């Protein structure tokens, strides 16, 4: 059995999305900046997609800046606002559990003379509003807090957090890469000025995303050039990609509620079953979590081994283990919620998607104890991490 349960990493492109994109490769291939018919046709397709993407977050179409993905959207938001507003202030607030695509731009900005405050989170991964209140300063120009965490699935109280910043004069950005298209996202209600989203997390193609920018936000472009995307992001528009994202947004608008209900049921079944394995634990918030996210620790086994072993059974999953990362550092998110390094090694993330079934969940629940059991058999640790001398 082949079971893909890594939808937080990427998703298959929906066949309806592929179909929508297809004409724009070799048939309607015009450059949207061109004046002739083929160009106008491409322009229309781009603007149509812009409208759909905007509607799913209740924002103005002119606020949608198409980018190459979530990483670019985050970089544009952070660096764009930082460079354009540095005469006003050089202080930026974010959290310890952001995606690298927020943390790394922040670290780079720190080298350019900006000062970054990283807010802590509680054991479930929630940012405490008081900590934001305390961190805000006169020279704070930007607050960036993710809508939901990609590893542990915790959903942050953005409405409340953005409310605190609202009267302060700093811009509020949220990385909604893991929520847009999965749970309701409403820039008006959430009161955010900038919001990042990515296509390949919602059954759209890789290589395209968007940044929502509220009217009036002062920001520099990150990609300078021909002045595309309302002079905020240059480069010939990725027409098929944008059309694909538009279609993915359209489908999400219609099917999101139904999907979320189904996924929540599957997720809860998965969590209940997996926690029957001894020395296991759920990471993230018990309720305030993405409908499709389950994240566990299985003590005494190591995540990369777990992933490879599951792969032999046809199951695609993820881990926050250090051994599986390019930097050999354990997940900063699991560390931030208080896990010890030796615990983070045993983390397993299963993220469900539209195509997953109850049978697949049951198959995973049948395989998982075997796999964990076998690795524990190989492991010198059975009840504790102490190394006997």
């Amino acid at each position: 059995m082949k079971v893909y349960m890594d939808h937080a990493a990427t998703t298959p492109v929906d066949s309806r999305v592929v179909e929508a994109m297809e004409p724009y490769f070799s048939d309607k291939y015009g450059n949207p900046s061109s004046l002739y018919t083929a160009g106008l046709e491409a322009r229309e397709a781009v603007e149509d997609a812009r409208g759909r993407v905007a509607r799913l977050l209740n924002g103005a179409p002119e606020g949608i800046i198409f980018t190459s993905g979530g990483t670019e959207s985050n970089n544009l938001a952070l660096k764009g606002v930082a460079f354009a507003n540095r005469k006003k202030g050089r202080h930026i607030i974010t959290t310890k559990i952001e995606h690298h695509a927020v943390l790394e731009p922040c670290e780079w900005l720190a080298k350019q003379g900006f000062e970054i405050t990283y807010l802590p989170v509680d054991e479930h991964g929630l940012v405490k509003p008081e900590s934001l209140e305390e961190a805000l300063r006169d020279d704070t120009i930007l607050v960036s807090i993710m809508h939901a965490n990609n590893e542990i699935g915790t959903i942050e109280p953005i409405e409340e957090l953005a409310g605190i910043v609202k009267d302060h004069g700093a811009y509020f950005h949220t990385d909604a890469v893991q929520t847009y298209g999965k749970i309701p996202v409403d820039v008006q209600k959430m009161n955010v000025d900038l919001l990042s989203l990515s296509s390949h997390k919602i059954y759209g193609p890789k290589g395209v995303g968007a940044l929502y920018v509220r009217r009036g936000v002062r920001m520099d472009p990150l990609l300078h050039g021909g002045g595309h995307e309302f002079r905020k992001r240059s480069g010939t528009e990725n027409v098929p990609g944008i059309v694909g994202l538009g279609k993915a947004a359209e489908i999400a608008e219609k099917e999101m509620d139904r999907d979320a209900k189904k996924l929540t049921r599957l997720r809860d079944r998965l969590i209940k079953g997996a926690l029957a394995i001894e020395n296991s634990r759920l990471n993230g918030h018990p309720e305030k979590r993405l409908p499709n996210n389950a994240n566990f620790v299985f003590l005494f086994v190591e995540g990369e081994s777990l992933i490879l072993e599951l792969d032999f059974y046809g199951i695609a999953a993820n881990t926050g283990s250090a051994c599986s990362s390019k930097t050999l550092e354990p997940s900063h998110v699991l560390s931030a919620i208080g896990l010890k390094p030796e615990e983070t090694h045993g983390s397993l993330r299963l993220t469900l998607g539209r195509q997953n079934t109850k049978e697949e969940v049951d198959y995973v629940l049948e395989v998982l104890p075997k796999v964990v059991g076998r690795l524990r058999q190989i492991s010198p640790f059975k009840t504790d991490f102490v190394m006997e001398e």
Partner: protein
Amino acid sequence: MYSKTLIDHFRNPRNMGRMENPDAVGKGGNPVCGDVMYIYLKIKDNRIEDIKFETFGCAAAIGTTSMITEMAKGKTLEEAMKITKKDVENAVGGLPPIKRHCSNLSADVLRKAIEKYLAEQKAKSGKKKGK
């Protein structure tokens, strides 16, 4: 990423498990870093008669430890001590660069076990002599 040989040793580890009453035990790594190896030895006439291992860690850690147990079994202690990290890496058919340092510790652990054993033997025979 991993060679077929390594994956085979990961999936079907040789000489896996704890050993009752070993003559020597080597331990290496650190649970904080995510890789811990235990190597157990039965030694007879200066030769590794039996060898077992336990590993907490990634596929590279498990596979290389399994591999070294096969390489060392039956060898004299002197021969076994000459096995290097690089030998193990070659024997498993190479490792991703990032895995070469932290996960390929088994040669060190084996050497440590033998050294400890030899030191103990020396101490014992010293005691005997001293008596």
